[in-house]
């Protein structure tokens, strides 16, 4: 079966959507009986009036020799095909939530309302004709319901390199990965370490969002004399280096504020069979972290976090058991590429 993945393209720019599209094509091609290709259609949204042309152009393109289309982004997913499935990364938000909140470039345009309406009409017509609509997160799912009245199924993006997170011996440190910044609150973990009496280490590794936050963490370490118990490895690390830190940790910690999704950091830890400490207000992360089952959920303050960290260290067998439970929970969520590809091909 020939499967064409369709994405739009901002020339000379690569980001998460491009990585996802490439990975999806690779995974499809690794599936028995499937040949996949990526079609990228250049997209220009400024000036706003050219959006009408962009809709027209995508609707005018013709596909031949294609058995199934997986559309990712507006307006490329408008290319006609009788067997189309969407995996919506997000909609063209300028015509939806950003329009409503006044942040859309269409708001200042004299024909803005009509252009926004045109986009919504084109979307609705396309959505009606699709075999199935999957969304990347529950946020996109609820926007689609609210603005277009279409139901969809959340299909989370699996880890691109899940193979790296094999797990390994349970070491003597708790690992906090992911981007480092106020939104991820690594400072709470550092502060928690001053209350923890049991000997173990905290390792924080990842790219810092801002230099000021790096300074703040370093000052905390100095202030509470935590130099031999907190290791800050702030900066870029290879995926292999990150995986190694996860694989040999006793457990992991991840404290984002109201995350949209399950969070990669959580998925990586679970994949490697490590329990995770999260905060009560960590949002989507709590879909995976269940208190005392696959990790601990604590109020977002240093004393409470310290107490959970100590429990991880003092009862290692319980910690390991929670890690294994985390791994099985992740497996039941079917967040594998095989399951994802299966969904996208079966509807």
């Amino acid at each position, binding site marked *: 079966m020939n499967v*064409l993945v369709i994405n739009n393209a901002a020339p*000379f720019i690569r980001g998460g959507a491009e990585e996802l599209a490439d990975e999806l094509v690779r995974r499809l091609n690794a599936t028995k009986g499937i040949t996949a290709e990526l*079609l*990228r259609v250049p997209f220009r949204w400024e000036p706003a009036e050219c959006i009408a042309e*962009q809709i*027209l152009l995508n609707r005018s393109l013709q*596909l*031949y020799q294609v058995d199934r289309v997986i559309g990712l982004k507006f307006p490329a997913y408008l290319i006609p095909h009788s067997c189309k499935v969407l995996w919506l990364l997000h909609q063209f938000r300028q015509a939806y939530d950003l329009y409503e909140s006044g942040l859309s470039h269409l708001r200042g345009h004299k024909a803005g309302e009509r252009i926004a309406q045109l986009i919504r009409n084109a979307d609705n017509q396309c959505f009606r004709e699709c075999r199935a609509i999957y969304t990347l997160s529950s946020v996109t799912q609820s926007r689609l319901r609210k603005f277009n009245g279409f139901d969809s199924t959340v299909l989370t993006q699996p880890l691109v390199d899940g193979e790296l997170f094999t797990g390994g011996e349970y070491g003597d440190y708790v690992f906090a990965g992911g981007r480092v910044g106020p939104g991820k609150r690594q400072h709470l973990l550092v502060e928690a370490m001053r209350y923890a009496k049991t000997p173990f280490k905290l390792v924080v590794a990842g790219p810092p969002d801002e230099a000021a936050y790096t300074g703040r963490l370093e000052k905390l370490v100095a202030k509470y004399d935590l130099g031999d118990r907190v290791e800050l490895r702030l900066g870029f690390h290879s995926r292999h280096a990150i995986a190694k830190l996860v694989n040999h940790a006793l457990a992991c910690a991840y404290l984002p504020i109201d995350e949209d999704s399950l969070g990669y950091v959580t998925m990586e830890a679970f994949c490697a069979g490590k329990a995770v400490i999260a905060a009560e207000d960590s949002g989507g992360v709590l879909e995976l972290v269940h208190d005392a089952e696959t990790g601990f959920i604590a109020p977002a303050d240093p004393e409470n976090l310290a107490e959970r960290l100590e429990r991880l260290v003092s009862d290692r067998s319980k910690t390991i058991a929670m890690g294994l439970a985390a791994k099985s929970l992740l497996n039941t969520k079917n967040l594998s590429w095989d399951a994802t590809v299966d969904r996208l091909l079966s509807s």
Partner: protein
Amino acid sequence: MKIAIVSSFVPFVYGGARYIADWLAQKLLEHGHQVERFYLPFVDRTDDLFDQILAFRLIDLSSACDRLIALRPPAHVLPHPNKVLWFIHHIRGFYDLWDTPYRMAPDNPSGRAIRACLIELDTRTIREARRVFTNSQVVAKRLLNYNGIPATPLYPPILSPERFHNDGYGDEIVVICRIELHKRQWLLVEAMRYVETAVKLRLCGTSMNSANIDAIRATITRHSLQSKVILEDRWISEQEKIERLASALAVAYVPQDEDSYGYCSLEAAHADKAVLTTDDSGGVLELVSNEINGLVVPPDPRALADAMDRLFVDRSRTAAMGEANKSRLQQLGVDWDTVVRALTS
């Protein structure tokens, strides 16, 4: 320089037109340019011909890149102030194939109007380009005849030609290209009925239309040619291709009035193999001269059979023609430095 390469494609159909864009992108990168490559879908179908061309016209990269290099039609209709064409063929059913069974619309007022409109549209959008290169003399002549636009041939090389090598001259005449009616593998199979030596024919390739493969297989069975004709109806790997060519006696490429010499002829030359072609094969004749670096015969099964027998019997002559094929490439300037210089100046 920020360069966008735009070409059209039929998804899941692979062939020379894709390589030219992929390889060019790689070479431009090596020369320090930033490169984006876009393949946009296009189907040779009359009903929605202008809708599809409209879509291409509406793609506006004029502020996104410093230069646009357009390859397969209708990529040449994209607007850009610094557009350069490496024009590889027209939509031929409305051009040179109009007076053939491959005509894409009936020869009536409506069909003729579509044709006139397409030619007018092509002429106008090709004229927007700063420079117009073609992949052959044949296409350059067509541009002059039909559109009144002068163009310069810029011969497309293959990537890393040093991959190919010669292991001697075996018994097989090898054909590695898509199996389509106009590539006329069927003519070579017919010819195999008349050969008198132990020469063999090996066909490698896939088809847009499986009926073409079925027809060839039926011919093989009907004339009991199973021991003489080997059919590999799949897309062979590059490594397999290298091996097939290394041990080949010669290569055959007998398309009907093809636009350019074809990558398979170049690959033959890099493996020191002579090319058997026909006197109506078009662009192939810009590369192959009879008795110099290959044989050129009429598109007739008996003539082809006779040529195959000659290649088989007089091996030293066949080997000498194969070696002459490589020097012919230098003579024509088939190399990437020439291409990059032309397209970026």
